[in-house]
């Protein structure tokens, strides 16, 4: 934990020294979308806030955006073979912004609002409210400068903090249903991020990995650490007035076991692999994107939970 804080402090330190902000005028960013999904939605980790960070845009521009995300799950309400399966729908509306601080450092912030429901046997339960706000900084470690090379490369590393602004309600985790029916983890969590982009002309591959350290919350509940990875191919069609970027790839999530009073909670670990595809279109200062994720393989909560699909739509405005 200390290492993360130190590293993060360094990043912040860097940025504090360089205020000569250069506002890029690039029309809009594509690669944000490529990065969004894997950071986003947590099946087990409940920070369903995690959020579309878009920290890895290859164009250093500023923007604010609005995004709607829908996640559908089916969970077993009970511990028996004949326990009923119930539907869970997680809706998230989020505002996010990205600010380049220097040529190499960018800061992202994400503010989610959740509207979640689950159709328990005893009746439908709803929760809604502000989720966990995430602030992150990303540092460009390496970037191919010349356009003449066959491939261009870019490597970004970063870290951040997820602030427990979303309400964690202990009672929602009673019983043996999905332990992620919450607005937030209730804990201070710390993501570490890495991103690698390789491009040849208009075709590119974006690879991201991130690890989220989660801490114990005030109710002595601790969500398991989470590892996300994704690889996304994208292609830029530049039609002068309009730009269109189709993209497709794979995204996976691994969850460690949750703990309560430092004791492992059974059936809370899991993993899932998604196929993802989407398209983004941009014109002038606006861009609009649609994205979907469908599970290929999953083992969540020891088979007591299934992700059905996720989709999102977003609108961004370049500042």
């Amino acid at each position, binding site marked *: 934990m200390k290492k993360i804080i130190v590293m993060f402090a360094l990043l912040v330190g860097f940025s504090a020294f360089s205020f000569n902000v250069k506002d890029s005028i690039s029309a809009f960013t594509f690669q944000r979308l490529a990065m969004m999904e894997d950071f986003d939605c947590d099946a087990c980790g409940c920070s369903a806030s995690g959020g579309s960070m878009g920290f890895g845009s290859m164009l250093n521009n500023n923007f604010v955006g609005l995004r709607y995300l829908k996640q559908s799950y089916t969970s077993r309400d009970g511990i028996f073979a*004949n326990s009923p399966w119930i539907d869970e729908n997680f809706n998230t509306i989020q505002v996010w912004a990205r*600010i380049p601080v220097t040529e190499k450092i960018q800061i992202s912030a994400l503010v989610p609002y959740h509207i979640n429901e689950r159709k328990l046997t005893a009746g439908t339960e709803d929760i809604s409210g502000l989720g966990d706000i995430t602030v992150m900084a990303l540092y460009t470690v390496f970037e191919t400068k010349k356009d003449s090379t066959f491939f261009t490369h870019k490597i970004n590393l970063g870290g951040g*903090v997820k602030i427990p602004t979303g309400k964690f309600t202990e009672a929602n985790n009673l019983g043996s249903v999905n332990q992620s029916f919450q607005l937030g983890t209730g804990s201070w969590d710390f993501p570490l991020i890495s991103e690698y982009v390789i491009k040849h002309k208009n075709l590119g591959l974006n690879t991201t990995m991130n690890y989220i350290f989660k801490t114990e919350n005030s109710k002595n509940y601790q969500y398991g650490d989470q590892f996300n990875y994704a690889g996304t191919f994208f292609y830029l069609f530049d039609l002068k007035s309009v730009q269109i970027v189709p993209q497709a790839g794979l995204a996976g999530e691994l969850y460690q076991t949750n703990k309560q009073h430092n004791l492992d909670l059974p059936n809370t670990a899991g993993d899932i692999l998604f196929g993802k595809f989407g398209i983004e279109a941009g014109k002038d200062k606006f861009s609009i994107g649609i994205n979907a994720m469908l599970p290929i393989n999953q083992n969540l909560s020891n088979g007591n939970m299934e992700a059905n699909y996720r989709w999102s739509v977003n609108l961004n405005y370049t500042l």
Partner: protein
Amino acid sequence: MKNTLYKALAIVAISITLGSCSSDDSSNDVSGKGKIILEFDNAYGTNDLILNTQPNKTSNNEILKISMVKYIVSNVVLTKADGTTFTYPKSKSYFIADEASAEGREFELSDVPAGDYVKVKFGIGVDEEQWKLGASGQGDLLAQADDAEMFWSWAAGYKFLAFEGTFTSPTVTTATSFMVHTGKTGTDYNYTEVTLDLPTKALVRTTITPEVHLITDVSKIIDGTNKIKLSDNNAGGMGAMIMGGANLPLITQNVSGMFRVDHVHND
């Protein structure tokens, strides 16, 4: 632009300060007394038990529709991680589990010394020592058992387990009632004890009441280590009544193996 940046930095600074504080875990204070709940959740095999309507099949191809499951839980002993034990006071240590009522599913033990418990032991039935105290020594137990129809007569004693319903089988094609009642017989006392490890420590604290979620697989009563066919006990087609004889020790042995702890909630 700069404003936004300052705000972002401020948030980061604050979060580092707060995030690095160690949180106080309420489980660190191991003093005083608390409570613990033993939840008895009846199942048939891997399915939750549903009374009256759900057909349940035995390995002898008999189909049971179960209308009643009751048993007396007694003499609870909890073992801490360090090996020391806490014996729940005998006068409070009898509980009648009953699938048909909410009160019959959760046995709440109070005034339990705070500690990390790793094992639970309990009896099924009323121990012989208690019975030998005579009718005057039974306290509330006698009246409670009588109300629950878990008592025959003073001479015949308590029913330790009552398992009733109807069944059909390849040879008994119309639904026929069955009753399995265990208790003492002339030759066997038939009280049995069960010791179970907890998969997660139960943290009894003044602020934490752990709930030990036990699953009682009632299929084991006649279809456990010992297999007993109801059809063989259906004398004259009047229903299978197993309340004594050589089958009771076999059923008692089955009963001692029908419990497991699924999980523990430390809420």
